[in-house]
């Protein structure tokens, strides 16, 4: 397989077939996947349940081994222990030791990276701040965490080593809209730091907001791959936006378009997204002294 320095991830004809007890093919979870993820981009892995998204991530991390084909991650064979030093991984659910508290969890994973104690003392509070876990919740056992808090601590452990490549499997599952927005902001900030993010989700809105490129998988096979804006663009429809037009100006615009022969023009007021509205309302209350994070 050709390795390129510009590629964070490369797969060639990557295939995974699950076998039954007798060694017969049971499920072809991933079939002949060839793709490249460039360094510094946010890449979306989309598809319905059972389409092969998680299988792809597991193959890239060496949790399972390919039946055929191969993959390279940051220039090394997938699953190589050495390259794990530069990878962060947030699984689809926060698979962490539930008897540890937030700080202990990060300290444990930090020690697996052999990060010195002093550096951990500096990095852990900063990370917990970044993911939005307050001082009180840091000392609570993970078994007492809400789903959203568990996602946040999961994300923190994925970032403990300041990784170059971050694999996020359904990162916004269980998060409230504020958390979702913060997660998306964080992903964009990671991108701004030059990191590569592989995002696996079936929440299309989230993917659309943050991803540069996406791939859509269905039944283990690649269906579409490309830039988000290219793929979403409706090429035969034109949208013109203007602020503060009067009714008179609207009527004249409509008449003008009619004169040009545009018969089915729609002129209306755009709406904001529900997420935008929710975030605005909650943030106004947060400023007023109420918090939604850390209460479970």
């Amino acid at each position, binding site marked *: 397989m050709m390795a390129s320095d510009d590629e964070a991830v490369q797969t060639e004809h990557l295939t995974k077939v699950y076998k039954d007890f007798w060694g017969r093919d049971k499920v072809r979870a991933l079939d002949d996947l060839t793709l490249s993820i460039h360094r510094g981009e946010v890449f979306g892995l989309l598809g319905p349940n059972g389409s092969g998204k998680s299988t792809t991530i*597991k193959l890239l991390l060496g949790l399972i081994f390919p039946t055929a084909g191969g993959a390279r991650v940051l220039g090394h064979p997938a699953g190589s222990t050495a390259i794990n030093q530069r990878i962060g*991984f947030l699984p689809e659910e926060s*698979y962490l030791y539930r008897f540890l508290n937030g700080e202990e969890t990060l300290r444990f994973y930090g020690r697996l990276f052999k990060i010195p104690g002093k550096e951990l003392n500096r990095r852990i509070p900063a990370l917990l701040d970044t993911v939005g876990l307050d001082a009180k919740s840091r000392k609570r056992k993970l078994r007492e965490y809400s789903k959203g808090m568990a996602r946040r601590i999961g994300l923190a452990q994925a970032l403990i080593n300041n990784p170059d490549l971050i694999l996020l499997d359904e990162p916004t599952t269980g998060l409230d809209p504020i958390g979702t927005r913060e997660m998306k902001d964080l992903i964009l900030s990671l991108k701004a730091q030059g990191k590569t993010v592989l995002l696996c989700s079936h929440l299309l809105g989230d993917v659309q907001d943050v991803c540069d490129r996406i791939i859509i998988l269905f039944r283990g096979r690649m269906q579409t791959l490309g830039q988000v804006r290219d793929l979403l663009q409706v090429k035969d429809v034109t949208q013109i936006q203007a602020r503060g037009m009067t009714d008179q100006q609207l009527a004249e615009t409509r008449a003008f378009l009619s004169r040009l022969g545009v018969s089915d023009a729609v002129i209306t007021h755009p709406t904001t997204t529900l997420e935008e509205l929710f975030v605005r309302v909650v943030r106004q209350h947060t400023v007023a002294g109420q918090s939604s994070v850390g209460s479970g």
Partner: protein
Amino acid sequence: MADHAIFNLLADPSWLGDHWGWLVAAAIVVLGLLGAGLRDLGRFSPKRIWALSGVCFDESIRKRVLWIAPLAMLGVIVVTELQKALDEQDALRQSLKFCLFATGTVAVMVSIILAATNLPRDIETRVIYTIVTKPTTRLELILGKIVGFARVSLALLLIMGLFTWGYLRVRERRERGQIAHRLRDGDVGETEQARLTHYLDTGLLTARTLRSPDQFQVYGRMPDLAGQKRVISDQGNQDVLAEFSGDRAALFGEAPPEAPADQWAHQGIGQFGLVIRVELNTRRTGPANDQPQEAPTFGPTPPKPKGPKPLLPPSLLIDVFGSTGYQLVGSQQMIGAADLPTLRQEIADFVKTSRMPSSTAMQVRLSRPQPLSDGGQGQVAYAWVPPSAATRLFNEPFFYVRFTGASDHVDYEVGPQPVRVFVPQIQQNRIEFESPGAREVPLAAGRDGQPLPLTFRGRMGLRGGQEIKGTDSGPSGIGVFSFRHSPTPAAVNGQIPMEVNVYVDRAGAEVLEGHEAATTLDVAVYDRQSGSVTTQSVQVESRQIAFFTVPAAAITGPDYDVAISCPTPGRDIGLFPADSLQVVLGRQSFEFNLLKSLCILWMMSILVVSLAVFCSTFLSWPIALVLTVVLLLGRWGVNQLADVTGPGLGRQIVNEFRFNDAPVAEVVSTSVDALSRSMNLFSRVLPDMSRFEAIGDIEQGVSIPGEKLAQSLGVLVGFGLPAAVAAYLVMKRKEVAP
């Protein structure tokens, strides 16, 4: 070391067979780590292992595993308070045994359960996703688990050990207070007083380093230890064993290696039998009760010859024992005679009639004194083992010829080589065994190539000891404990401490303390270096250690003998070769001994953890749990079945179940034998858990020798390390995501 191993291999290919378990273990470790795991070995990080182990430790602690310790302690206290002890020291020793048993049980059970369930649960809960996607090698993962649970078992052992120490020290203080009180009140007998005073002086928990004798012999009279003559007494109170080589070629003659057993067995002693020749001297010590009764006569009484009728010589009993200690040929199955012409005649009659004569080796009368080949005078007796009985020696690596003094009031004086065994020949219809065609069977040789010395034994008592007697006419039987190349005992206040532990019988019933007059033993210490003899009397109670001392001057060199006899009439004293007489080489603190015991238990726990982790890499936790227990107890289980699974089991089953159809019988027999062989083979690759013997010594107040720690470490390294490497190899190829 390597040269030594290669030399062994070249010199003796069976070395490979004897050590194949170790070779497999070494191959797993070397090939596993250097072959498959070289890259992971290069990334090996103790810090990561410690981090992983910390999580295992924290998890166990937070699951309140250590709560088991106080529960076990409570159980120990209840049991020890209900116990019935022989004396104050026995009470403490029993308590110590319970404490350590509970400690070991808790540590092992907790280790098995935690280690066998942890990895499968990590996989099931998918926590392992976040661990193996870090720069953690699978080797570090396995070692992290093992170290983690080793830390848990260490914590348990330390807590339980601390409890054991505290509890026993408190109890010792209580017991010593009671002893002091009893001694002050004078409420003790003379024998007990000596023992209790010793307890007060040395403490009830102090460990001793004991030296057991290298050899134990029982003679009829106190021998001149510098000379070679020994005496066994009469009435079957002692016997003598001479050990001979069972070399098949020597006994049966040469045969092609592929020849079936039947072909071998019809040569040599399988054709002509075996001749045993015993030579010794006898001396009457009382009335000759072994003379033949005169037959009643009818009619006129014939005139009696003038002068006293010469006495017939005393009799012997001769028989043959196999290597396992079972009697192979009884004396009634041999033909005995005092001279060769009689023996030849008896054999000729036996060949003609196929009936054993009345003169079997049950009571072989010795010849009258005659010149012997060594120039001295002696009496001889012969016994012939017929071929049908002699073939029982076919599979014996060695065998014993035993002779016992059968007459009353006779001392049998035995030289250095009283027994010779021959494979005879028939020449001109006469059986010959000193002709060129016959050959002599060599004595079994020791490691130095020298013939093994004779074994003089006392009569085996009902309680398993070799017995000597105290009679009105003086002691009958002397037990001699020989110490060779022994370290010089440490004298305390110019005295060397010794211990004697025997049982005392009277007319078959055990003499218990306080009910009868004290039993006295005479102890004589023979110093081989100075030639001095130091004597001492010791009062003993049955199955109670009697503590006594001899002056430091009594033992000046590494070789010495201690002779024990009983002057108290009517007492039978049961002696055991290994531990009836021991010399105290030094003393050691209880704390240090306890620490060694805990070390052994910890090593056992680590092995248990390694095996459990290995099993959990490829099995679900309940099955891993069961397999771990099987691996731990397998060898012990097969050892328990040792006799059942021995050679010939197939034939035995065929006979038992009466398989009359020959082909079916053959199939069943070979299948059962193959199964039995496989089971034995399998058990040989399993760890020998009996090597982790942590309780026996400390319970007896004996300092645990360094060799036991080394043995435990050997088993841990020999089995734990390959198990860890095998677990790593399985994990390396395992897809941890379902």
